[in-house]
Structures are given as structure tokens and as C-alpha cells.
């Protein structure tokens, strides 16, 4: 999780305070690697999510390095624990800048994502000779590519508005949906879902009644059964939730224990403990919207992904290859660096703008206007009758229901990007 290099030097130096004060200056090592700072929770209630993400990055970096790296340089992933805190993340941002990190990546929590977009903007303005690029692999608050958009920020996950557009399009065709309950985490991400879902449902299915709209504290609720009984008594037949990490697995676990009989529309039910928590109770009831799930390799020609999927699962017991978008992000970064012929943040950011790339599921595009990636999305159902791969050994797997083309997922953005002149 951290770099042990230089440990001895620092340990020795720590003996004398005076000498020790100088130590951090020794930290910036040679520029022989491309350093990517991974800033996500590695402790606390969302540690499992952050840890899984870090393993994805390290694994994919290892694959790139095995193929000769980027422009002859190795990619190095440095994990930083931000404890899910926006403030801690900004502190890390400075630390990372000092250590020669020019690319940072983060995903868990739009409140952190928002702080980092702001922090990177300020940093780049104040330190024009030491700029950074922020690659966002999972913070989905639409504002990050909307009113808060920044030239230095690129998002590789569909934003919440895009996801809800896809989900509500699908829901509009399901006639048996009558009453919908919204339960989300109480921060920008959950608030956005609650707001946008209500708007979109009203427009597409005015007959659907919203019987509940709850925001709960982030990462603090240990027992969701009061919320479950609230859903129960509201008479809802469908629940929409953008919860993630423990907040999702505890929620669905409480739902399963309480015998709650509803359909779940989720963003993140596909991995990181949630399938285990769902178990049989979730069969045919839980749907998710993602850019990928394991069984897609059965429907599409994707030998490389099949290899990654199997190798990753073998290597990390209990963690499955979940984030295709991390691979997309690393591949696009590699292509952008090769196109720019350099690892300079400004050149790479310019190369990334408007870039397209082919994937086994279709073309993906980094939209120039707001730096939002447009990629194909899939709606899948958790089922006992799955094609090949089950999820986390639960005996259930994901079955694809619908594919949404990259173009159809696009939602207009209010972003007016300010681009640096030099």
C-alpha cells in the first residue's frame, strides 16, 4: 500500500529531529516511472471498495509494464488512504505533487471528487510548472462534468444523470412498476440521484408514484432494518439506490433478512461483497446498470477480457474483476501519452480530449465539451440461470437484459470549459 523504498534512509534520519525535518525533500525520486497516485479509502467503512480498486490498478499497471510500459517507462501506482475525507484528499494531493506524481485517480465519493477537481484547479493555477491531471474512475455526480467541470478532470464512468437516463428508459417499459422508493446516501451523489430520478420518472412515467425518498448518513448506519420496514410499509414494488460499498451490502442484507419483496435498481450491486450479501434472496429481483459484467464475455468476442477476468480472480481470492472502466482509463491514458509523445500533463490532457477508442463492446469517446466518457452501458439481472460466471461464488450470476449504445447514454452538459493557453 505504500512505498517501502527509502525506509531505511528515513528511519535513520528519524533519530535526529533536525536531520529528520529534511527528509521529505529526499522523497522526490527519479523520473523513470509514470506515477499514478490512487487516492481512495484504504481504511474505514469503505476500505474494501478502495482496496479492490487499488488492486485493479496495480494489476493493470503490471500488465502494461509487462508489455514494455508506456513510452518505455514503467507505470507505478501509489496508493494513498484518504479515509473517505475530502480534506485528507487535498492534503494527499500536495504530498503527491511533492513526490512527483502528475496523475491522480480517485473514484469513491463525489464529495472527494469535487474537492479534488477544485484542488487540482487551484494547484495547477498556483504551480504552472508542476501540473496534475485528475482521472476519475467512479465519482458520478453530474456536476463534476457540469457546472464544476475542469480541463484537468476526466471522467471514465457514466455520470449519474446518464445512468438514471438508462435506468428510467428501461423502467418506462416495465408496466408492472407502480410505486418507487428512493434510498440513497446523504451527499452530493445520493442527492443528485434523488433529484434526477424524480424528474425523469415524472417525465417518462407520470403514472408511477414515488412513495418514499430517503437520504441516510454515509457509512454510519450499521443496521438498515428501520429503513427496510419503512420501505415495507410504503408499499413500494421497486427501489432505486445508488448506494455503494458497505452501505449497499448492509442495505440489501437487511432487505433480504426482512423478507422485503421488491425489485432493486442499483448502480453497484455487481461486486465487492454485495452479491454475497444478496444471496438467493436477490435472485431475479436485483438489477444493475454497469459498463460491464463477467458474463458479457460470453456474448461478445473479448479474449483479452476473459483472460484478465480469470487471472484476476485466481490471483485475488474473493475479489472479482469489476471495473472495466479502470482498464479503459489505463488504455486511453496509454494511447494519449503515446499520441502526445510525452508524459507532460498538459500535452496528455489535450490528447485525451475528444479521443476515441475501440473496445469489445463498441467505440468509446472522451467528449471534448466536458471530459465525460461516453461508453456502452448494460442492464443486467442477478439470476440463478446465468451463462457461465457466477458472482463471488454465490451460485448466482448476472444476465444481460439490455445494451445501451454509447450515443444513447449521452446527456447534455452545461459545462463551459476554460482551457489553459500554455
Amino acid at each position: 500500500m505504500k512505498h517501502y523504498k527509502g525506509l531505511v534512509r528515513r528511519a535513520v534520519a528519524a533519530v535526529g529531529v533536525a536531520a529528520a525535518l529534511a527528509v521529505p525533500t529526499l522523497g522526490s525520486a527519479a523520473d523513470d516511472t509514470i506515477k499514478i497516485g490512487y487516492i481512495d479509502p484504504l481504511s474505514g467503512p469503505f476500505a474494501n471498495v478502495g482496496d479492490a480498486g487499488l488492486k485493479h490498478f496495480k494489476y493493470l499497471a503490471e500488465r502494461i509494464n509487462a508489455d514494455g510500459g508506456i513510452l518505455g517507462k514503467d507505470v507505478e501506482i501509489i496508493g494513498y488512504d484518504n479515509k473517505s475525507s475530502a480534506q485528507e484528499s487535498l492534503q494527499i494531493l500536495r504530498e503527491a505533487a511533492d513526490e512527483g506524481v502528475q496523475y491522480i485517480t480517485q473514484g469513491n465519493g463525489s464529495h472527494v471528487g469535487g474537492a479534488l477537481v477544485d484542488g487540482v484547479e487551484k494547484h495547477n493555477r498556483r504551480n504552472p510548472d508542476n501540473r496534475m491531471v485528475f482521472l476519475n474512475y467512479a465519482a458520478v455526480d453530474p456536476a463534476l462534468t457540469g457546472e464544476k467541470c475542469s480541463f484537468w478532470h476526466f471522467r471514465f464512468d457514466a455520470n449519474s444523470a446518464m445512468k438514471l437516463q438508462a435506468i428510467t428508459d428501461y423502467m418506462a417499459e416495465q408496466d408492472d412498476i407502480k410505486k418507487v422508493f428512493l434510498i440513497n446516501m446523504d451527499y452530493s451523489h445520493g442527492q443528485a440521484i434523488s433529484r434526477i430520478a424524480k424528474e425523469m420518472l415524472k417525465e417518462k412515467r407520470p403514472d408511477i408514484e414515488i412513495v418514499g425518498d430517503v437520504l441516510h448518513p454515509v457509512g454510519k448506519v450499521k443496521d438498515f432494518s428501520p429503513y427496510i420496514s419503512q420501505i415495507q410499509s410504503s408499499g413500494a414494488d421497486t427501489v432505486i439506490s445508488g448506494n455503494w460499498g458497505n452501505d449497499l451490502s448492509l442495505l440489501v442484507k437487511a432487505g433480504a433478512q426482512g423478507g422485503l419483496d421488491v425489485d432493486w435498481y442499483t448502480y453497484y450491486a455487481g461486486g465487492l461483497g454485495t452479491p454475497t450479501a444478496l444471496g438467493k434472496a436477490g435472485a431475479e429481483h436485483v438489477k444493475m446498470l454497469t459498463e460491464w459484467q463477467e458474463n458479457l464475455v460470453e456474448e461478445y468476442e473479448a479474449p483479452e477480457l476473459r483472460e484478465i477476468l480469470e487471472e484476476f480472480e485466481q490471483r485475488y481470492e474473493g475479489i472479482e474483476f469489476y471495473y472495466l472502466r479502470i482498464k479503459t482509463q489505463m488504455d486511453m491514458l496509454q494511447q494519449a501519452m503515446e499520441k502526445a509523445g510525452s508524459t507532460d500533463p498538459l500535452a496528455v490532457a489535450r490528447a485525451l480530449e475528444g479521443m476515441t477508442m475501440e473496445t469489445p463492446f463498441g467505440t468509446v469517446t472522451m467528449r471534448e465539451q466536458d471530459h465525460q466518457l461516453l461508453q456502452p452501458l448494460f442492464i443486467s439481472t442477478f439470476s440463478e440461470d446465468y451463462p457461465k460466471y457466477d458472482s463471488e461464488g454465490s451460485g448466482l450470476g448476472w444476465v444481460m437484459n439490455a445494451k445501451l449504445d454509447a450515443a444513447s447514454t449521452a446527456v447534455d452538459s452545461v459545462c463551459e470549459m476554460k482551457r489553459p493557453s500554455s
Partner: protein
Amino acid sequence: MLESIVFSVLNGLLYGMLLFMLASGLTLIFGMMGVLNFAHASFYMLGAYCAYTISSYTNFWVALILAPLFVGFLGALTERFGLRNVHKHGHVAELLLTFGLVYVIDELVVLIWGQIPVNYAIPPSLDFTLFTLFGTSFPAYRAFILFVAVAMFVAIYLLLVRTRVGMIIRAALSHPEMVGALGHDVPRIFTLVFAFGTGLAGLAGVMAGNYYITEPGMAFSMGPIVFVVVVFGGLGSLGGALAASLIIGLVTTFAVSLNYSVADLLAAVGLGLDGENIAGGLAHIDLSRIGQMLPYLMMVLILIFRPRGLMGARES
């Protein structure tokens, strides 16, 4: 509405009894030794982790017995080699020592078991639905938690009031010199009491670890609220801890499930408030948001107006 009230009561009772399992040990230790054990929730976490490890080799029932014993043993070591040494510096030093232990124990847990939550699951023999009410099922494990908590309360009560050991313990607290003069080893009694209290915390951890989630942050999320319970109920009072646990369990649960804002309630009785002015803004805050703050507010208020707590015998 009725089903929501019934389930809120059940959930509140359950949460309250879990709190009580944790708080009883803390209040006993304080009542007997005058030590406020800051690290109590850390021992609770140790109980959950030990139960996880033991049950992965054997089964839950073995863990249910061994884990609290082991945690109690660690508690005894803490008292013997830590607290006893600083006892001469007074209660503040003891408080500070247990405060430091929080950091040490919490980190040791990360060191041994990692930062990722461990898969400590409810035993299959208790993993079924006990009964279904209004379409919501009530899992058997919850009933088991309630059963263990009640049994624990009865056992502690009988132990203290009805047995000779209990009498000596109670005497050692109020008149240590006298008990010592009668030939009892007072320091050893203190060690036993501390071990017993931490063992109870360990038991709470065994029960709650699989019901909630076993992760390194579980001590921190539980610690302050247990303090609230103990202070609210009256430091050293077992009955007070029980009453306070149930009150706080019910209050927080109801605040969540009755998801109305004050403005909704006022509107229901015909008083409209607009959200523009400050009073209106305050009234529009959801009850569920206030719910998190209520226990602390209750604690501060009781400390101001009745510092010995609901049923406490004396003031700190």
C-alpha cells in the same frame, strides 16, 4: 403506521439490548473501580474479531464461549500491568491510559486482521426466519441476541446481589481498606472485575459482530454512544444502564423510521411554516438527521441537570 411502530419497537429494543451488553461491563468497571474505560469499545471489537477467528476453525458456539474468556484475559493483563501501575497517579491518569489503549488496540486489529471487513457470518443453525409479521420477517438471530442480553442481565444481577463473591466485590469498592483488612486481596479483586467487564464487552462483540459488520472501525463507531448510555443511566448503575440503553435504542430507531420533519408535524396540526426564515429552516430538518444528535444532547442535558444520571448513586 401500526406495523412501522411495531417494527420500530422491535428494532429499538434489539439495538438497546446490544448497547446494554456493551454498557453493562463499562458501568460495572466504573462502579467498582472508579475507572472510566475508554477502550471498552475496543475490547468489544476484539470480541468480534476473536469470535471470527475461533469460529473459522471450530464453530460459532465454541467462539461464543472462548472469545469472551480470551478478551477477559486480555482485560486482566491490561489491569495488572497497566492500570495498576498508574493507579497512584489518580483517575485522570487511568483515563488517559485507556485512551491510549484505544489507539493501540484499534491498530493491532488492523495489523492482525487487515483493514478489510472480515466475513464473520451468522451461524447457519440460527440463520432462519423466526416469524413473519405484516409481511416482514423477524430473523431468529435477533431473538437470540435478545435472549443472551436478558440472560446476561439476570446473571450479573444475581451474581452481585445474591452471591458471596458479589458481596465482597461491592464491599471492596466502597471500603477497600476494610476488605483488605479482612484478608481479601483487593488488587486481585480489581483485576477480576476488570476482566469480567471487558469479557462482557467481548461477549457483546461476539453477538454484534456478525449481526452488523466486523471491521476495524466498529469500535470507533460504538465507543461514544456507549459512553452516553453509561453516563445517561448513571455511572455504576446496572439498572440505569439498562434503562438508558433501551431509551437510546428506541429514540434513535424511532427517529429514523418516523422520517418526518418538525415542519411536517406542525403542518399536520394545521400550522404552516415557510422554509425561508431561520426558524422555518430549522423546522425543515428531518427527524432522522436530528436522531443522530439526540443521544449526545440527552447526555449533556442530564449531566447539567442531574449529574448522577438516571439511577446513579453518586456524582462521578
